């Protein structure tokens, strides 16, 4: 009944599981309805697309840029010159050191 090749076996198993769940839900829609709605709401929430509008100050990558600039300013105030040119390892090492020293 099932294929002996792994990907096809997985796919057939998945389809069988979906059909079994579908049959169980169709037989008892009232029992599973609220739970399914809850799962769907959570999944939709997880799928919420990030804001990437260039003109919006709440833009996800502008926020990341601003956070990096704040870290650079903090390091410059502590006497680190041109922090952006440091290697990633040195940069986060210094950020961690000064954060712990506070």
């Amino acid at each position, binding site marked *: 009944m099932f294929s002996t090749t792994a990907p096809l076996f997985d796919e057939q198993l998945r389809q069988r599981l979906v059909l079994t769940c579908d049959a169980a839900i169709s037989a008892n829609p009232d029992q599973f309805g609220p739970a399914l709605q809850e799962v769907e709401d959570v999944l939709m929430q997880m799928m*919420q*697309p990030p804001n990437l509008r260039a003109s919006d100050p709440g833009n996800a*990558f502008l926020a*990341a840029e601003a956070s*990096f600039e704040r870290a650079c300013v903090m390091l410059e105030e502590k006497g680190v010159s041109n922090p952006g040119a440091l290697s990633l*390892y*040195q940069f986060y090492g210094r950020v961690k050191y000064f954060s712990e020293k506070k």
Partner: protein
Amino acid sequence: MLTLATPTGPLCFYDDIRQLSAARWQRFSAKYLEYSIGTNLFAVDGHISRLALFLGQRNMTGASEQFNHLVTSLNHIRQGVNGEAVVLACLLASIGEEVCDDVSDSGLLITAERITGTGVSQHRLVKTLERAKKRLSGNSH
């Protein structure tokens, strides 16, 4: 360094947190996020499916963002931008003997065109990007 052999010479990418500058990592992270919406027709297909889902759920905020991503993806395709190449351009140390250090928006687009101009396949670009990101993210913090 991660080296990608191409018909026109090797492309060397940073893949070590002791070599990659923090500013370049920042550019990489921002561009990775910016181009995560995709610059090909598969991405457009995904945006349309999700747009239909959000509209079906009457989630207008999600639908509006998704529509924005759809338009952005289509604009990238119209302009011939290769998202993976732009993101990789942030990590490109050199093309052959030539050092690449322009990580401005326009500089990255020019470098991306040079990367695709070397004739390297899209599949290898995607694999290289995944490999570099994995190595950098695995030990960045």
